[in-house]
């Protein structure tokens, strides 16, 4: 277990250091996320009340679009100069590798979620009515998205399909996460009268299942 944690932190720290140096998140993904929020607002041409009621769904659609970019980047880092071969020869546990890469994607998603939360408060005049539910939903849905994204990113790379196919593979899998996270945010932002905590439980289940499946399946995808 100690070895898995050491490898996990090694891979996550490496990916985050690369992201920090390349500034892809700060210079490309974050502006893209804010642009999506602005474009949604312009396209809907709605009053503040309508935007507030749509804000949870728009927030999570923006997160998923940014997650696609983060996952593609995470895969490309290993494929660019065949570093993935070195990882296969390193003896590192594939589960630790999966968890490390998913953790790095999760950290990036959490940064984007904070930014997007600020975005919907400023642009859509949303107000946070349940901070705990908002934070836990962001974290739990982030885990589910990062786990599924890391798994399907490796799957797409292993199949040799073009990276443009990743959204087609990944987004259907993430549909339940999108629904659950939107409903929980509806409650946390006071946009609709639903039981957000019940949806959070569903999200937690999805996060656990996707993480376990990813950790187990990654060996097949990366090693063989």
């Amino acid at each position, binding site marked *: 277990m100690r*070895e898995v944690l*050491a*490898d996990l932190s*090694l891979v996550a720290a*490496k990916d985050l*250091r*690369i992201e920090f*140096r*390349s500034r892809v998140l700060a210079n490309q993904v974050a502006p893209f996320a804010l642009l999506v929020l602005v474009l949604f607002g312009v396209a809907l041409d709605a009053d503040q009340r309508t935007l507030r009621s749509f804000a949870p769904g728009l927030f999570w659609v923006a997160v998923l679009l940014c997650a696609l970019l983060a996952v593609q980047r995470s895969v490309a*880092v290993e494929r*660019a*100069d*065949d*570093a993935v*071969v*070195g*990882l*296969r*020869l*390193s*003896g*590192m546990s594939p589960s630790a590798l999966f968890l490390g890469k998913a953790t790095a994607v999760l950290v990036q998603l959490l940064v984007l979620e904070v930014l997007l939360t600020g975005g919907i408060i400023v642009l859509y005049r949303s107000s946070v009515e349940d901070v705990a539910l908002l934070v836990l939903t962001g974290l739990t849905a982030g885990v589910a998205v990062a786990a599924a994204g890391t798994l399907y990113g490796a799957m797409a790379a292993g199949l040799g399909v073009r990276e443009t196919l990743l959204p087609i593979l990944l987004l259907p899998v993430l549909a339940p996460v999108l629904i659950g996270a939107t409903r929980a945010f509806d409650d946390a932002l006071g946009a609709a009268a639903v039981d957000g905590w019940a949806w959070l439980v569903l999200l937690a289940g999805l996060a656990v299942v996707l993480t376990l499946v990813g950790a187990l399946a990654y060996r097949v995808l990366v*090693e*063989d």
Partner: protein
Amino acid sequence: MSVVELRGVVAVLGRFPALAGLDLTVAAGETVLVQGPNGGGKSTLLRLCAGLVVPTRGEARVLGFDLVVERHAVRRRVGLLGHATGLYDDLTVAENVIFWARAAGLGRAAEARANWALGRLGLDGPLADQAVRTVSAGQRRRTSLAALAVRRPDLWLLDEPHAGLDQEGRDVVDDLIGEAVAAGATVIVSSHELDRVRRLSPRVVTLAGGTLVGDRLGVVRDA
């Protein structure tokens, strides 16, 4: 003891047999040069010995492990220098070598071992703190070799290790191979630079069409 034992090995990549009934034995501590025309199976042989290509038919054992069922055990004990350098562009030279040392499970010894490898390959000093994307192709190749050397593998698999290196770099690679063999490692080198590699290796095997068509000891077969 044989480190590599291949008998009638066939390896099909896509639709085509990259290795077509290859027989090869390499003894522990031996240095072997693999030569042959492009597409002859040299790189596939190295990847097979690294446990990255699974034999379709035949018997294949490396370091005593069966390559079909125990290739994961093989991978931890070999070092492969391929055509790609396997480095991260946005990390520095030193960070790359330290990462691969830690990934190999060296733990606290990783940094000291990485510093040794960086010095050995002439990558210490200011160069160590440069991002890999900013260094020359030769320095990149040296960094890749340092990342391999830091693991001190039992079997070194080197695909064109002198490519892109200047004279000093080539000499360093030769010295490194000599030191690895002196320490008990086995080395298989694929190279087109016969004159240089022959100085390292008393044994030269030739691959063509995925089969062994000759070796320096006089065993010559039909292609």
